[in-house]
């Protein structure tokens, strides 16, 4: 699957490993949350980088403290209309300070890229040759936002307060 990261199409070095398959020793792997729960001890001994795929039904409040142990966290959109991962993303970034790659997987469509980006996603599994172009376009659609979310630039409210302070001087 092609990967859109930091606005560019890149090769995905991460290997998804099925629940019961053996893990390659020296390659970066994405494991399921269930496997992490079952094999935490052994997995912590590994030297190669580790990433995790979280189901969107997971309450990340119980997971967030461990987020920093992963280089990649993959969140799932089984359907584009199932928006649970938006909340998971903000919690991981803003509550737990997760700074690794936050990847959107599943039904990732052009018209949701901006929302995902604003909630803290920085990588997208999207199978389109023009992914970089549509991503740039999606991010340019709006010049300001009302909500102070993870990766938003200055909010409308912050800009207003600044305008007022400048006017007062």
């Amino acid at each position: 699957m092609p990967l859109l990261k930091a606005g560019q199409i890149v090769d995905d070095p991460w290997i998804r490993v099925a629940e019961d398959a053996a893990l390659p020793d020296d390659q970066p792997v994405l494991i399921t949350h269930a496997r992490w729960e079952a094999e935490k001890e052994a997995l912590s001994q590994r030297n190669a980088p580790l990433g995790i795929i979280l189901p969107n039904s997971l309450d990340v409040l119980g997971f967030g403290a461990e987020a920093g142990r992963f280089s990649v966290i993959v969140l799932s959109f089984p359907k584009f209309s199932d928006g649970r991962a938006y909340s998971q993303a903000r919690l991981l970034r803003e509550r737990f300070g997760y700074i690794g790659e936050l990847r959107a997987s599943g039904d990732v469509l052009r018209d949701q890229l901006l929302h995902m980006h604003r909630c803290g996603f920085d990588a997208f599994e999207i199978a389109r040759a023009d992914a970089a172009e549509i991503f740039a376009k999606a991010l340019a659609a709006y010049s300001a936002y009302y909500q102070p979310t993870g990766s938003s630039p200055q909010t409308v409210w912050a800009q207003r307060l600044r305008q007022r302070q400048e006017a007062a001087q």
Partner: protein
Amino acid sequence: MYKYDQLDQTIVEERVAQFRDQVARRIAGELSEDEFKPLRLQNGLYLQLHAYMLRVAIPYGVLSSRQLRQLAHIACRYDRGWGHFTTRQNIQFNWIKLEEAPDALADLAKVQMHAIQTSGNCIRNTTTDQFAGAAADEIEDPRVWCEIIRQWSTFHPEFSFLPRKFKIAVTGSPNDRAAVRVHDIGLRMHKNARGEVGFEVIVGGGLGRTPFIGKTIRDFLPKQHLLSYLEAILRVYNQFGRRDNMYKARIKVLVHEIGIEAMREKVEAEWQAIKDGALQLPQDLVDQIAAHFAPPPFETLPAGIAPEYAQAFRTDFEFGLWARRNTAKHKQPGYAIVTISLKKEGEAPGDASAEQMQAVADIADRYSFGEIRVTHEQNLVLPHVKQADLPAVWRALKAYDLATPNVGLASDIIACPGLDYCALANARSIPVAQQIALRFKNWERAHDIGELKIKISGCINACGHHHVGHIGILGVDKAGEEYYQVTLGGSADQNASLGDLIGPGLDARQVVDAIDAIVETYLRIRQKDEIFLDTYRRVGLKPFKEAVYAAA
């Protein structure tokens, strides 16, 4: 009223450009209907029985005369000369062409209007008291908070794909005219023991196929924490609301299934983590928004009834009838609030022609500081009319068939579009509303009956709010025939209640007779000063049920 600054204006214009691109991609076949659907829905564009319907947001029901004129223009240019005001204080146009929708939105943007989030599983237009800023019983102006909620909820990236739609209502008065107990979140402004104004937060109310009266999740929320508290509720709902069955996906079902205590625990825990963060509202910002809602330049007038008004009331019977039903007490001495009935007997409830919209805009300019409100009961309001001008306003409205003296009476019916327009409906609503209104057309009888809220829905989605009608009527499909179920005793005010089913369904002709029989029974057994709802609450279903089914 609120005026956009450059930032607000830019966002709305960017939205038009974005939607224009989406429509072009749909027409070019690049987007499938399945992919396009959620995009057009988040812009209020529905595919109905005959054409596209465009639902335009009227944030918290407040319109300027300039905006109302533009709605008249939209009705003429893109529709067939009509608009339909809805129970969510919005307006719908029923005959829109897909390829023209972006132009209609561009025209709306010129007057600071849009169709953003008037549909879809996101936070919808926030509604409030149509008398806000004018009502004599108001604690504080709720529009300030509605506007703050509007901004916070517009394109909220986390809450654009919720399990289901989400509706917030705010009241600033103890007499609830905004039905806050039957919304996903209801906010009731009140004073605590220290005299500070804050919100009672009510969650999990709603109508539809499983109606619930909302439950109080927090008695008193200080105002500066409003947005963080809303965000906490929405975050809990977004993660834990049901997504396996769209009929069980509203927050009311989550609250019902886990219980209000568990819900409170989750929300409060989330809120503690974010309450002192970026969503805390600086007073400076609140003041800046509140300044938009400063009272208009009222004249200083003596208290009491203006002599011109008293004179007309005594000498012109028809005017007196209208003034009794269609005006309300204003907080400013010498002023009154006028409700314009869009319920002329025999017309579709909530419909207004482009000509009528123009006329109301002109009257508002001359007599009400250019301000108009839309009510959730599908009427319009002139919020600030001098009492002395009431006779002139009445005459001006009468010339456009807008002076029906029936506000709050049996013919002031809420009805959804029903099977005549809506793809979901099982039965027609508008013709039933029209027949009932005609049955209660006689002013003497109607005024004798007094306050009576009849609400009609054409299917169990309950857009006509039948559960909270003093008399509710629900259209159902019974083996291909249209039938109507009648409920009694519902109410959407501060003492909200859900109606009780009276018995087996009735056909379209029988249901009008049944309403008549119910009203006759009330007139026979009512005690002094009781309105229908009081009598029902005193005696219960039995006598009404007997009256309805006796003949059958």
